[in-house]
C-alpha cells in the first residue's frame, strides 16, 4: 500500500479489485477538517471515470507502472500507435485512454507512455510542442483597433488554436499542451 502523496497523473490504482489510471488529482483542504486528495480516475476495463476523495493519511493500492519514452507513429481507427525507441516494438493504445491529449499528437512526437503489464495506460505530453502553421487568415486592417487581437490558425496536425494576428502561414510556433493555447514563436 502507498501513501496518497504518491498519487500522480498516470499512476494506476487498484480500487475494489478494478484497475484505474489517474487522470487528474487535486488537493483540497476544507479548513475545518484534515486535508484530502480528490482523484479522478478511469477504469482500465470499462473506460468509466470515477471520482474518489481520500483523506491524505489514507493508503492507496498503487500498482507498478513502467514509464517508457516512445514515438508517436499514426492513428489506427480510434487507437494510437506508438513505437518503443529502444526496441522498435510497436504498441497500440486505446483512444479512450489517450483522451483529449490525442489532438496534440503529431508524427514522430516523443511522449512518455505508462505501461501496466505491457499494456499502455497513459501518456505524458511535452509541456510545449512545436507545430507548423498551415492556415492563418491574414490580419485585416482595423482588427486590433476593434479588439480582435487573436485569430484562429490551423497547424500541421490539424489542431486549431487562437494565436496573435501577426502569425503567418508557414511559421513554426509552440503550443502549451496544458492550456491548449499559443505560447510563442518557435
Amino acid at each position, binding site marked *: 500500500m502507498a501513501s496518497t502523496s504518491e498519487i500522480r*497523473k498516470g499512476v494506476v490504482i487498484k480500487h475494489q479489485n478494478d484497475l484505474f489510471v489517474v487522470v487528474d*488529482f487535486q*488537493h*483540497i*483542504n*476544507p479548513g475545518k*477538517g*484534515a*486535508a484530502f486528495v480528490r482523484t479522478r480516475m478511469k477504469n482500465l476495463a470499462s473506460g468509466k471515470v470515477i471520482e474518489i476523495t481520500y483523506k491524505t493519511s489514507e493508503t492507496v493500492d498503487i500498482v507498478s507502472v513502467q514509464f517508457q519514452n516512445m514515438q508517436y507513429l499514426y492513428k489506427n481507427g480510434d487507437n494510437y500507435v506508438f513505437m518503443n525507441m529502444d526496441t522498435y516494438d510497436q504498441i497500440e493504445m486505446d483512444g479512450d485512454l489517450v483522451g483529449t491529449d490525442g489532438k496534440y499528437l503529431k508524427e514522430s512526437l516523443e511522449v512518455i507512455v505508462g505501461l501496466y503489464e505491457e499494456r499502455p495506460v497513459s501518456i505524458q505530453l511535452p509541456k510545449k510542442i512545436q507545430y507548423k502553421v498551415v492556415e492563418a487568415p491574414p490580419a485585416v486592417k482595423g482588427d486590433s483597433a476593434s479588439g480582435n487581437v487573436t485569430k484562429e490558425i490551423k497547424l500541421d496536425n490539424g489542431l486549431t488554436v487562437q494565436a*496573435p494576428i501577426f502569425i503567418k502561414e508557414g511559421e513554426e510556433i509552440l503550443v502549451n499542451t496544458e492550456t491548449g493555447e499559443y505560447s510563442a514563436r518557435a
Partner: protein
Amino acid sequence: MFLFMSNWSDLKNNPRLKNIYETRLHILRLMREFFWSEGFVEADSPIALRLAGQEPYLNPMEVVIKNSFDSDFKFYLRTSPEYALKKILAAGWSKVFEISKCFRNQESFGGTHNPEFTMVEWYRSPGTYWDFMDDSEAMFKYVGEKLGIKNLCFGDLKVDYLGDWDRKSVKDLWMTFLGKNLDDYLSVDAIGKLVVESGLQFDQQDKYEDLFYKLFLNKIEPNLGLDKPVFVYDYPAQMCSLSKLCEHDDRYAQRAELYVAGLELANGFGELTDFKLQKINLEKDKTLRTQLGKPTWPVDEDFIAALKSGINTAGGIALGVDRMVLLFTGARDINEVIFQSVADQVNN
C-alpha cells in the same frame, strides 16, 4: 501539474489571461461599491498577528519580527481577519468588511488553492446568518450584472446565478444523497460505521470532522450548486467552534457554506458572542492542535475581552475572492486569476 501561470509576460502576450486580470481588478472595485452602497465601512486590520486563530486544521505561517534591540517576537500571518473584525464590532462599528490578503501553509500550489489568497470578510451586528446569505447573493448579482456575465463557470460546468439561489440544511442533504437522518450520526461511533458501510476507509485516529468530510466530500459536495449556487447551513455543533447553536436544535450550529459548481466559496457563522463558551471552544481547539502535533499559542484574551464587553447578535462570512474571480472568468486554475501566484514564483 499546475502550470497555468499569470506572470507579466503572460499578461502581455495572452489576451485571455490579460482579460482575467482586468476582470479581477474590476471585481475588486465593484465589490467595494456594493458594500459601500449597503452602508458598510471598509476595515483595515493587521496581516501579522501575535496570536493566530485556533482552527485545528489550519497552518498559519510564522514570521519573526525584530525590534530595534534585535529581540525576536514570533508572529503569524493571518489565516483570516476574523478576530480583528469582531474586535472592531466591539469597538462600536456595526457593519464592517475587509478585503484581506490571508495565508495558509501546507496547501497546494494551484488548483483551487494558493497559500496566499484574497478573502472578503464582512459582519453585520445586529445580524444573522440569513443576512449574509442575502448579502452574498446580492453582491454576486451586483458584480455580475455590471460585468455583463450571465453564468459562473468551473471546469465544464456553467451555473446560472442570476435567479434565486438555493438554501439547504446539512440534514436535508444527508437525506437526499445518503438516504440517512443525520440526527442518528452525530457520534464518532455511528458515523464511523456509516463510513465503512459506504465503502470508505475508516481509521481509528479519525475525528468526527474527518469522518463527516469523508462522506461529505465523496457523496455530497460534487453535487452541490450545479444548477444554481447553494448555501448549506446548520452543521453538527462539534464542527463549529465560533458559531452559535441553533435555536431549534442545539445539536447543530449556525454555520453556513456557499457552494457553486461543487466548489466551496465561503464559510460563515451566526457568531458565537457568549465569551465564556467561546473561550471553552477555543481551548478545546488548542488541545486538539496539541494532539495533532501542531504548534500552539495562547488563546487571544483580547478577543475574549472584546466579546465580554458585549457585541450584538452578529452574522459574519468569509468569501474567497480568487475563487469568485475564477467562476466569473471561467479560468482553469486559481493560478490564472492571481498575478504571480506562489507556483509562478517558485517555478520561474
